């Protein structure tokens, strides 16, 4: 068992390293985009003087490695200077540093900084939105995972029957439509005509849980339709793959019922690939749902990411990108650990 703990520790260390490289990549990519924050923020109304004033106030005129260092917290974050030559910067604004006593206040110190555009702490901006994104992802997963496992097992059981074909065809159809189209169809049927569910999932911090489930039902259903096919077909394929193995034949010859053969004998050995696909889809539910958010007016992380990239709001872009990267790292790790645990040969070894 201990080698699993060692594996987790190792993988977590590598995960942190991955996040570090991701942050450099994202920072560099944001820098490569044409225009900087000052220009994008002012948009059509930018004048050279106001652009220069914003750059001075936020320290955007500093070289990029210094800005990265400040953000990371390995350089003191007080280096921006206003027109009168007085030092300003977020550590000073936050009251941590003074002009004579520099302080480090970057990510390494646990401070993601302030949004460049509305000067609010990134942590505060992320708080409710991260909660909303996780809520929607879990809600969709709570419907999609059991549903696709069940459908996959049944499809494997009744393979090549009419049932199998119908399930496959409808799953493939729903994954082939673009998400917004699925969303519009659901709105048309379930919100427009019947008026059963609201078309806008405007969740506010005060909304209670039952209300949230009701409001977010259509977005969750849309996402379910989008992710079910992948997981369902992987379950079906992984099980059918095993059905030709000698030990399954043995079980059959012993006279077991087909459902018992599949659930007791085939499924445990098919778990590893299924878990991996589920993890991949969960990561997608957290990181890739901006279109669904927009259609249903759902305040999640996707819209925040898109807006921040458009405005070149580096601290927010970095924070959201790191959350997304962390979601992938952690879900992959979880999938690998679970896959290992599902295989007694790997658990017993070492």
């Amino acid at each position, binding site marked *: 068992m201990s080698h699993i703990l060692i594996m987790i520790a190792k993988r977590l260390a590598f995960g942190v390293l991955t996040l570090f490289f991701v942050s450099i990549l994202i920072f560099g990519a944001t820098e490569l*985009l*044409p*225009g900087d924050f000052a*220009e*994008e*923020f*002012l*948009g*059509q*109304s*930018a*004048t*050279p*003087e*106001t652009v220069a*004033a*914003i750059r*001075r*106030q936020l320290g955007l005129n500093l070289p990029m490695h210094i800005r990265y260092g400040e953000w990371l917290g390995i350089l003191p974050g007080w280096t921006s200077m*206003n*027109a009168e030559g007085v030092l300003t910067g977020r550590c000073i604004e936050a009251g941590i540093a003074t002009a004579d006593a520099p302080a480090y206040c970057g990510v390494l110190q646990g401070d993601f900084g302030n*949004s460049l*555009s*509305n*000067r609010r702490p990134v942590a505060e*901006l992320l708080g*409710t939105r991260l909660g909303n994104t996780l809520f929607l992802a879990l809600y969709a997963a709570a419907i999609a995972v059991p549903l696709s496992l069940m459908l996959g097992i049944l499809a494997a059981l009744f393979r090549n029957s009419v049932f199998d074909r119908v399930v496959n065809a409808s799953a493939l159809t729903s994954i082939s439509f673009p998400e*917004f189209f699925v969303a*519009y169809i659901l*709105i048309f049927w379930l*919100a*427009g005509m019947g*008026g059963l569910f*609201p*078309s*806008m999932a*405007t969740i*506010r911090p005060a909304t209670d849980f039952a209300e949230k489930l009701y409001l977010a039902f259509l977005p969750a259903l849309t996402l379910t339709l989008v992710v079910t096919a992948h997981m369902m077909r992987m379950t079906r394929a992984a099980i059918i793959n095993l059905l030709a193995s000698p030990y399954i034949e043995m079980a059959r010859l012993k006279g077991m019922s087909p459902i018992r053969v599949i659930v007791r004998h085939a499924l445990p050995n098919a778990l590893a690939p299924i878990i991996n696909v589920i993890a991949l889809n969960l990561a997608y539910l957290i990181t890739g749902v901006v279109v669904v958010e*927009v*259609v*249903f*007016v759902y*305040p999640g992380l996707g*819209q*925040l990411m898109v*807006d*921040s990239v*458009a*405005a070149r*709001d580096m601290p*927010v872009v970095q924070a959201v990108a790191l959350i997304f990267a962390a979601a992938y790292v952690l879900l992959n790790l979880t999938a690998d650990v679970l896959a290992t645990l599902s295989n007694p040969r790997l658990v017993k070894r070492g």
Partner: protein
Amino acid sequence: MTNTPFFSGGVSRRGILKGASAIGGAAVLGPLGARMARAQPRRGGTLRIGVAHGSTTDSLDPGSSENDFTILMAHVRGNFLTEIAPDGSLVPEVAEGWEASADARSWVFTIRSGVSFHSGREVTAEDVIASINHHRGEESTSAAKPIVSDITEMRADGMNVHITLAAGNADFPFIMSDYHIPILPAINGAIDPQTTDGCGPYAIEELEMGVGARLVRHDGYWKPNSAFFDAVEITAIHDDAARQNALISGQIDYIDTVDLNTVHLLQRAPGIEILSVTGTQHYGLPMDTRAAPFSDNNVRLALKYAIDREQMVETVLNGYGAIGNDHPIGPGQRFFNTELEQKTYDPDRVRFHLREAGIESLSVDIHLAESTFAGAIDAGVLFSETAAAAGIDLTVVREPNDGYWSNVWMQLPFTGTYWGGRPTEDWMFTTTYSEGAPWNESYWSHERFNQLLVDARAELDQDLRREMYFEMQRLVSDEGGTIIPMFANYVGAHGNHLVRPDTVATNWRNDGHRIAERWWFA
């Protein structure tokens, strides 16, 4: 006054077009405009507004208000020194009145007593000065910096604010109605740009940028017979279909933007009224007048005659607009030139001007993005078709939305633009056509025009001013560097349980962004 608002509810698109081209600024009332006299406004209810804009990167800083969410918020939570009334005239707001010296350089605004901030304190002259100062000075990052840069001195004396300008400006009180300059409380002589306070009709209760806001009626609001709702909820709904769905299903009472491709479908929905207003919002195609071949006015004229304006309004705006005449003054404005010949699509004149320019065949690129204005790419393609028939090879280069305003507009010689418009002729011309202005998008420099601009600004005699502005419109239309083919209507929609006043303002969307103050529930 010629500034009768031009608005219509549910008029057929042909009707709007004809009305616009035939009688310019006169009011064209549709069947709904001729509705029976309305009952007295009723208090109560929560007005739920869906707006097409609003980003998580928006800021409370009034100097950064640049989209319909933040501009609407500025008017719902704030008051300004002056206000543009529904009929387009200027009326006092936080200022009770004002006086100018004969040269229009010194102004005295008297602050109204009894105007209170949501936090309780009454508005003073110091608050007004601090609110304006936020947009001045080298360190200011405000988008309103250019329009207040002429102020040389401000001083408070009791309830009076004395303002001295570098040069005379007869329209200065108009500038004080600008959406960037709400009156905010001064703390030690400066405003806190991130404050949620204000002295407007509703106070912020909840605000999440890019998501929405909830505001409740400010009990101490001074304006009588106004602000009828108990609360206002503003939600950012970017997706056109989602917005229209929310209106039809009754989750929202009013939406500020209707997709012009589907407006006829929305119109058919029961209980929905379309509000279409022609204001000063116009779409333009600026050419860099310093760069060949656009440096030759004949080339510019050739292009101006190569665009089919009627068809542009018909297809790009689905009829919801008016044709433009290559100058930025709207048909509803005070000094709109009614004598100017309307430019039309005329291939013969195109060929004539090309011959005059000594060019055999003209081949140019125009750089547009989807986000330049709604339908910009379509407008470009349509332009290139009609230009081709007149012998001009016009290629539409599709640019990315991202970074359009910093990398394409005013950087490449032939691009697209849009302006929400400005309430006065001087303001509009100064912003985009005066030499050296940061937004002089065609880099146009015309001696006579620039002279007239300065003279007209300080002129208090209305007839003389009219003459000057008429000439300036002619100069911009005949010699300027921007093709302005159309004025786009502000098209919104609301449920018919919401009552709008008989006259709806045309200076901005959302009844001049005063919907929360001027509308009520039936």
